[in-house]
């Protein structure tokens, strides 16, 4: 109750200030009158009585102040006063305010945006219960590359494992939903029954897969993703139990996943069906599935990795099929590392870069506030002389800094918001968990806390400075003289700023050089004028023998007739598209297995792509089903597996070994399959008709004239003229695919460049500020020098010399720092040494030029100092 009273009275005093003050004044006046009356009663005269009363009270104003100073509202009033005063001060110095607020906004905004983006990827736990207990299991090839696992291995491991509570395998599934105007190809996954239980997420509607769903010839059931359910079925809850048509087959919907379900193992997947594999099928031991598992309580990730490493080979000893390589190794890694591992170095580098920007911003703001402190020494000294206490002065200056920080923080939030949108727009397609990036409240709080702490930290320095200096001394000396320590602090801040900017500039320079070199890497084919798209067959009409082959043949014929098309071919996997189809390669008569990219192509593929034929012959119409199986190999395979001997005429098994081997008839140039950075791996090419099965999904490559992208609609129409129910997806020119494969580096580069430009601008502002301040402080000295006969040249040297000395110091420290930082960036660099001399030299030149420009204006001002004026003003 007393608390309420406190609050109410306080608020009343605040809101109706004049009333409250009049009450106090009246009460004091009444007291005075009564006291005077008492004196009069003792026989004093009127005037004397009043004087005696006033003496007794000790000054009406003082008492008024004392009484008014009581209560919490008074502190609020003081703060408001401080704020008003600070706001007035900032308005009076618009240049200083604007530069400071912008500096803070850039620093805080960039940091907030980057932290928002990185938080879900690197920091936030995966969106699964006990997400850290989920692991992926990998098979490692002889050269340590991760390979997909097999159903047979998964099944055996699931029976024998102790470290895992449950295991699941999954593979992509691309069913076509027909029935509406245009066929829609859905992205989904075929999973074993434990999949969702491994992730720890249950359907929001209906039921999860059961073991009984997941057997050969099991029921045709699917679980829908929330997005698909809303898009195609209007979020109708009665969908459970209904049939839908996928690729001409009826499936029963048994469940719908919750909206918040995030599938990091297949972010695009929106429909799931059971795997329904048996143990006696050809594909049982084929490497085409990914394995994921949930750790049993009490077992660690390290235990799981050890178990996988021993259990895998043990299983192979017991039941290794003919086709399985004997030298396979196994491991388990945390799902989180698996998902984010590839982008982690880039993100950490970006994080470091943005931290540097923030540091530079802090240094700059400190410098600005220090400079302002110098200008205000007179004012502060006057206030101290008039009786303002140290604490009062510090409080006032801190209020001003916090006000600046809050302004900067608010502007920074705007920067962060736009920054996040830019990050979204720029982010490479394969950035994991990209859609989880959002302006999150935690980061907002982080940004605000940062602003306040920054304001307090930065504000303290000038406040302490001002409070420490002797008002008497300061008043006597006027306002614009430098003090030694003051100048040194600011000079060292500039040195720090230059050093930090150099680190950022070198970093972005190295990235730029990497990207240059990356695009100079030959892809192994003629990328320009190539249009690609994925065509597939789906539905029961293709179950008939040869129907798929016939469809693809007709598609080739139809596309060939499109005006503007020069040549056209199909391939089972397309370079740079993310396709990754690898098979075991075994030399005839040997036991050793190698992993190799396998391309099932139509004749003319090598020619359409522009892959050079080095030896032998290419594939052509003679190589059809029934004729002797032949293959092309790439140069690196020919060199590594056949030593110096000519590969042509050698016989190899690709995939299963129980079929006649392929005879190598030609050697073609290396092609980069996964990205420009990964070295050329082994590759084999066979004709689609001689491959062990018919791929239902093929990529069409079209070489045309002029702008090939404009051919896309005509080509699609040609395909649909063959069968209007077959989806055509992933339409892209090869140039686009190449650019996308470097997207991650480009992303890092754009961010680095932005940060580096900001850093450079801030450093330039810092150098300018300090040198301009120094010239202003030394006007008198320069005037005396000029009067004593110093030439313009020597004065110029004096000013520029100081600027360059600071810059040189910063460069020295920066070079050492960037050498250390460069090693951390190594993972992002491509064919560029972290100590690359070209980059360093150009950055040094750039910094020197910027320093010269920053010093030019103050130097010019110094030269124009009129000795007569300065001396007279003394």
């Amino acid at each position, binding site marked *: 109750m007393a608390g309420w*009273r406190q609050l109410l009275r306080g608020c009343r005093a605040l809101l109706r200030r004049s009333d409250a003050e009049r009450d106090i004044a009246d009460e004091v006046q009444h007291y005075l009158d009564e006291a005077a009356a008492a004196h009069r009663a003792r026989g004093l005269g009127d005037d004397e009585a009043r004087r005696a009363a006033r003496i007794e009270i000790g000054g009406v104003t003082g008492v008024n102040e004392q009484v008014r100073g009581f209560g919490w509202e008074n502190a609020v009033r003081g703060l408001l006063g401080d704020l008003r005063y600070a706001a007035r001060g900032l308005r009076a110095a618009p240049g200083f305010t604007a530069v400071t607020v912008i500096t803070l906004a850039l620093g805080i905004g960039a940091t907030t945006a980057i932290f928002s983006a990185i938080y879900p990827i690197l920091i936030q736990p995966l969106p699964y219960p006990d997400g850290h207990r989920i692991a992926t299991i990998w098979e490692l090839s002889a050269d340590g590359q991760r390979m997909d696992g097999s159903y047979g291995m998964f099944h055996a491991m699931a029976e024998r494992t102790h470290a895992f509570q449950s295991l699941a395998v999954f593979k992509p599934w691309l069913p076509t939903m027909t029935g509406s105007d245009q066929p829609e190809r859905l992205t989904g996954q075929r999973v074993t029954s434990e999949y969702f239980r491994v992730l720890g997420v249950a359907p929001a509607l209906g039921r999860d897969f059961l073991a009984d769903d997941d057997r050969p010839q099991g029921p045709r059931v699917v679980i829908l993703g929330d997005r698909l359910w809303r898009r195609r079925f209007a979020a109708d809850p009665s969908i459970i139990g209904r049939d839908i048509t996928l690729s001409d087959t009826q499936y029963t919907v048994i469940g719908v996943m919750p909206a918040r379900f995030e599938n990091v193992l297949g972010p695009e997947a929106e429909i799931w069906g059971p795997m329904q594999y048996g143990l006696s099928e050809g594909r049982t031991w084929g490497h085409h599935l990914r394995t994921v598992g949930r750790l049993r309580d009490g077992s660690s990730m390290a235990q799981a990795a050890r178990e996988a490493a021993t259990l895998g080979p043990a299983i192979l000893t017991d039941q290794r099929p003919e086709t399985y390589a004997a030298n396979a190794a196994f491991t388990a890694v945390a799902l989180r590392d698996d998902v984010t591992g590839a982008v982690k170095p880039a993100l950490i580098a970006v994080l470091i870069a943005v931290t540097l920007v923030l540091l530079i911003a802090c240094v700059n703001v400190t410098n600005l506030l220090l400079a302002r402190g110098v200008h205000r020494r007179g004012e502060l000294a006057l206030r101290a002389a008039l009786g303002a206490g140290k604490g009062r002065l510090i409080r006032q200056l801190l209020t001003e800094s916090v006000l600046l920080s809050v302004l900067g923080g608010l502007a920074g939030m705007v920067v962060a918001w736009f920054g996040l949108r830019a990050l979204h727009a720029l982010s490479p397609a394969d950035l994991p968990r990209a859609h989880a990036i959002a302006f999150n409240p935690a980061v907002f709080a982080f940004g605000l806390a940062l602003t306040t702490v920054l304001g307090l930290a930065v504000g303290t320095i000038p406040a302490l400075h001002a409070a420490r200096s002797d008002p008497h001394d300061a008043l006597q000396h006027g306002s614009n003289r430098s003090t030694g320590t003051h100048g040194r602090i600011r000079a060292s801040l500039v040195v720090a700023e230059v050093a930090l900017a150099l680190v950022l500039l070198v970093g972005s320079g190295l990235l730029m050089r990497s990207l240059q070199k990356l695009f100079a890497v030959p892809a192994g084919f003629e990328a320009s004028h190539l249009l690609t798209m994925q065509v597939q067959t789906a539905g029961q009409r293709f179950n008939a023998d040869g129907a798929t082959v016939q469809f693809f043949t007709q598609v080739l014929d139809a596309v060939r007739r499109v005006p503007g098309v020069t040549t056209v071919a199909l391939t089972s996997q397309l370079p740079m598209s993310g396709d990754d189809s690898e098979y075991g390669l075994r030399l005839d008569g040997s036991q050793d297995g190698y992993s190799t990219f396998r391309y099932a192509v139509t004749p003319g593929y090598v020619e359409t792509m522009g892959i050079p034929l080095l030896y032998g012959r290419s594939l052509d119409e003679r190589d059809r089903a029934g004729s002797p199986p032949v293959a092309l190999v790439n140069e690196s395979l020919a060199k590594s597996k056949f030593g110096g001997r000519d590969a042509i005429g050698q016989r190899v098994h690709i995939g299963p070994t129980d079929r006649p081997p392929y005879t190598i008839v030609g050697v073609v140039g290396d092609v980069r399959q996964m990205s420009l950075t990964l070295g050329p791996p082994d590759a084999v090419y066979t004709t689609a008709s001689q491959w062990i099965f018919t791929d239902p999904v093929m990529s069409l490559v079209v070489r045309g004239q002029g702008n090939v992208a404009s051919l896309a609609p005509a080509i699609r129409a040609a395909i649909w003229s063959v069968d209007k129910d077959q989806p055509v997806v992933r339409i892209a020119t090869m140039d686009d695919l190449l650019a996308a494969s470097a997207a991650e580096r480009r992303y890092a580069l754009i961010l680095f460049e932005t940060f580096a430009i900001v850093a450079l601008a801030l450093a330039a502002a810092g150098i300018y500020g300090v040198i301009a301040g120094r010239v202003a402080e030394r006007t008198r000295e320069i005037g005396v020098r000029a009067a004593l006969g110093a030439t313009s040249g020597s004065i110029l040297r004096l000013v520029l010399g100081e600027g360059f000395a600071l810059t040189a110091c910063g460069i020295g420290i920066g070079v050492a720092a960037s050498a250390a930082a460069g090693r951390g960036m190594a993972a992002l660099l491509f064919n560029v040494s972290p100590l690359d001399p070209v980059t360093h030299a150009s950055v040094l030149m750039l910094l020197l030029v910027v320093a010269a420009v920053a010093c030019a204006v103050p130097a010019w001002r110094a030269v124009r100092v009129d000795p007569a004026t300065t001396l007279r003003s003394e």
Partner: protein
Amino acid sequence: MAPDSTDVIQGTLDLLILKTLSLQPLHGFGIARRIEQVSRGVFKVNPGSLLTALQRLERAGWLDAEWRQTENARRARFYTLTRAGRKQLESEEADWARRAGAVTRLLKADA
């Protein structure tokens, strides 16, 4: 000012105000004069401290304040002890008695 008058003992001003008001409602000057008279001029109340203390006690809910006419037809702020104030007075009186007794015992023991 009597030469032997002193400021009110630190921390006892609240107690003295509450005690004074427990007899009858008074305005600020009235309280000061009553304290001086009853203490026979030993205690001298500083007006600033007194008025501030009145504000504080009023905020705490121990006093009610009200503008009223005095007998010589002037407007004055009169203070009345509330029920909570009476309780506070009892506890402060007990506390004071305990402490004063302790001090007295200590002084006697010394002699």
